């Protein structure tokens, strides 16, 4: 099991979601966040409005998946989120030690899907 965390541009969220649904990844948590990368908040023509100094608006996606969904999920985020410009974001893949569905008490891979 992996936990995939992706930081993407807000305007790419719709495209990323569409790509994820096409890859049959239907579970996600979405939050609005602020951050910046190496360029310290400089982006190309369409600069986002900065908040708290040089922080830019981003979207953070969290998706927990079983092993055989890891690559399809990464590919979908790449396809939907990539513009080729500075500020497209990053994908982090973390090992996930357990997952529990609160309603039923199921654990592990069963609980994810």
């Amino acid at each position, binding site marked *: 099991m992996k936990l995939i965390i992706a930081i993407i541009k807000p305007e790419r969220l*719709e495209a990323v979601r569409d790509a994820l649904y096409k890859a049959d990844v239907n579970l996600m948590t979405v939050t609005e*966040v602020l951050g910046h990368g190496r360029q310290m908040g400089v982006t190309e023509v369409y600069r986002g*409005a900065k908040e708290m100094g040089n922080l830019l608006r981003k979207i953070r996606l969290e998706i927990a998946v079983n092993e055989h969904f890891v690559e399809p999920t990464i590919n979908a985020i790449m396809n939907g989120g990539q513009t080729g410009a500075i500020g497209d974001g990053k994908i982090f893949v973390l090992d996930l030690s357990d997952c529990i569905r609160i309603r039923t008490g199921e654990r592990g891979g069963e609980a994810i899907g």
Partner: protein
Amino acid sequence: MIDTGDTAWVLISTALVMLMTPGLAFFYGGLVGRKNVLGILMQCFTVLCIISVQWVLFGYSLSFAPGKGFWGGLSWAGLHGVGLEPYGDYAATIPHQLFMMFQAMFAIITPALIIGAFTERMKFSAFLVFMVLWATFVYDPICHWVWGIGGWLKNLGALDFAGGTVVHINAGIAALMVALFIGKRNGVNHKAILPHNLPFTLLGTALLWFGWFGFNAGSSLGANGLAVNAFVVTNTAAAAAGLSWAFLDWIFNKKPTVLGTATGAVAGLVAITPAAGFVNTVSAIIIGLLVSVFCYIVVSVVKPKLGYDDALDVFGVHGIGGIWGAIATGLFASKSVNPAGADGLFFGNPKQVLIQLLAVGVTIAYSAVVSCIIYKIVDLIMKVRVTKKDETIGLDLSQHHENAYTILE
């Protein structure tokens, strides 16, 4: 002779009507996504600025200067000859410049109404050019025909107390045309674009209702009984229409909604506008109850069926409500309310309905054709619609480089 009471009331009414445009901005602003709210507020506010200047430079002259035929000409350009003494043919008891200013507020809110049709997708630069051209070549001539000295619809005897044809039908038809040409919002086919702040929308509705007292009761141009009649029927029709829409929601969508009640109240205000100085209070209730039915059908049945994206239902509420109001004036008008008016069908004068229908037809035809031409010209010169990328980012950031809301302090 200047009458101080009349002057005081029209001064206040002018300020009340001015408040309607920011009120409209909040009515519309609450209904769009949060990435487009500043775009809407900015467009409404800019119309207030731009038409205020257009009006004193040449808009008032084109609309109201004595002239025959198409429009009033430029004899009053730059307010030349428009002074502080009354001008008897328009208003015998208030300064001429006050009449000019009162009319300015109508000229401002009319183009602002159209904004609801093309929300979330028009380029700001194209918007500016479109608005100036539309005010000059659509609003000013129609205003002259209905209200100006020598206006041919006025001479025919068409009744329009406070602007059902000039303001609401006119803006509603232009809105439909722009919505058809500019195309649907991205993604509107497969997902609902949810209102981001309904409290704004209700606040805006309340400000519109408040301002409408100036719009309708102020249109008597005096502090008199006629103003009170307009005030009473305006309030009554708005209330009846708000209730009517709420019940329609309850029957067909299981719950009465805030948005439906607000929309109904606005539809009621639209419908009573041409009739306010000619009908009694019972007629106002009927006009209000029925306008919500007609608008509801267009907004929730006809629009989805035809598939045009009049985003905030400018045509469905102002166009349809205005047409109903103009016809209803021909049905319910009574000389017992206003001896200077006329009797309608239900008071023994069927001919008035035909005159009203003619005025409606002419307004629809002229507004539709010229709005199309103006749209096409602006589109040819500078492309009216924003790029797909800018639309996805939202007008707030892409057109004004600002966000309405911060995430963290």
